[in-house]
């Protein structure tokens, strides 16, 4: 245990094997409440797999995972899943799934839409929203659940700069409400804006885990240097 208290995420010597293939190997790191961690790495390095491991979608083959319970987490996907119902009802759905008192569901869902700047589309069918709006709806659902841990897997991939800034603003609102953030991205400018700490993955292993300032000033590994210089994607 560190001086900052019990970590909200503690992964110790965790590995994930699918058949004979190793997707993650010997991963150890702790994340404390209030931290803002960005996971970087080339395509196929294991960023999304790591987030899914933390959320319980995958179970480590070896090692231990100690993490906030599922009901205290929210996961944001690159392609936001939305249900065939209105934007407001999409948020009501997750609140009902968390057994929130019926009287509070609509009030909380309405507030979540306001946080994400989606009040004007509350009654619109979620499937008809733009990609950026659907992602903000996913974040509104996350805010509504008051998560202690927000896991965001490339939430701004394929979105315009404006939409990206709106997503980041909504993520900041969720953090301000008390969530710890672990985010993956290929957008280095975004990583610099968001991260306090960078975890860099290469071929399923952590090769760097440092403060964002130190990482971007002087990456220590060849893999990270080549990634930052755009030699690998």
């Amino acid at each position: 245990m560190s001086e900052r208290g019990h970590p909200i995420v503690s992964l110790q010597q965790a590995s994930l094997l699918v058949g004979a293939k190793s997707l993650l190997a010997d991963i150890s790191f702790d994340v404390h409440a209030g931290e803002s961690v960005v996971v970087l790495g080339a395509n196929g390095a294991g960023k999304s797999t790591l987030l899914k491991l933390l959320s319980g979608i995958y179970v480590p083959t070896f090692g231990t995972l100690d993490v906030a319970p599922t009901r205290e987490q929210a996961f944001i996907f690159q392609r936001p899943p939305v249900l065939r119902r209105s934007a407001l009802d999409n948020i009501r759905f997750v609140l009902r799934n968390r057994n929130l008192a019926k009287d509070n569901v609509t009030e909380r869902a309405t507030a979540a839409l306001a946080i994400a700047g989606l009040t004007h589309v509350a009654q619109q069918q979620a499937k008809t929203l733009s990609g950026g709006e659907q992602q903000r709806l996913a974040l509104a659902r996350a805010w509504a659940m008051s998560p202690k841990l927000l896991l965001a897997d490339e939430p701004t991939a394929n979105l315009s700069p404006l939409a990206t800034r709106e997503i980041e603003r909504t993520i900041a609102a969720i953090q301000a409400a008390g969530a710890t953030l672990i985010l993956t991205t290929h957008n280095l400018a975004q990583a610099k804006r968001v991260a306090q700490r960078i975890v860099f993955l290469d071929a399923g292993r952590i090769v760097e885990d440092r403060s964002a300032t130190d990482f971007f000033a002087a990456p220590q590994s060849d893999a990270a240097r080549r990634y930052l210089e755009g030699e690998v994607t």
Partner: protein
Amino acid sequence: MSLIADSAAAAAQLLIAGDSTLGEITRLSIAVSASATFMGAVLGLPLGAWVALTTNRLRSPFIVVLNAALGLPPVVIGLVVYLLLSRSGPLGALGWLFTPMGMAFAQVLLITPIIAALTRQAIEDAHVDLRDWFSSMGMGTSARMQTLLYEARFSLVVVLLAAFGRAIAEVGAVMIVGGNIAGATRVMTTTIALETSKGDLPLALALGALLVAIVLVVNGIAHALKSRLQVRHE
């Protein structure tokens, strides 16, 4: 050629005049098949959703049985139901043999596998994009079933209307179980078979035209409903 023309003209007269026998038979057909579709939905929708989502090791055998049941000849189902409902059969005490209840029971057995098999496919398709999200929220099988049955509602309406079309067009099982008793268990398909064998083609033709119309209307409604709802939601 004159036989066809004369029969068609007589059939048209029966339809235009609103023949009471024709109306009675049509109402019974719709009532029996609608009841069977309702019961088939109650059984088949959750069964299909469960098979789509379960990781139970019985899943594969279940799928094989379901798919095999799709190909069961209706007369075989009729024979099995007849044996079950006959006085000495295990369900004989119900007194359903040669009643509309027995006919609906046979149709339930006929269409439940169809509803379950098509539901399984619709739920699996709907689950693909939502699986990881549901897992990240810790949703169990029961909560997923409820959510996905609602999520796939447009496809499932079509499944149910197709099942109704299958039930109302069926003849073999209801003939065996119902006995084709005039005024009691005589439905459109069994009447068509009987009247054709007797050579009374006008009534058979009129019922045939009505049956085709019902199936067309049901499928038209299914198509229009699905298109309209999907346009609203996507």
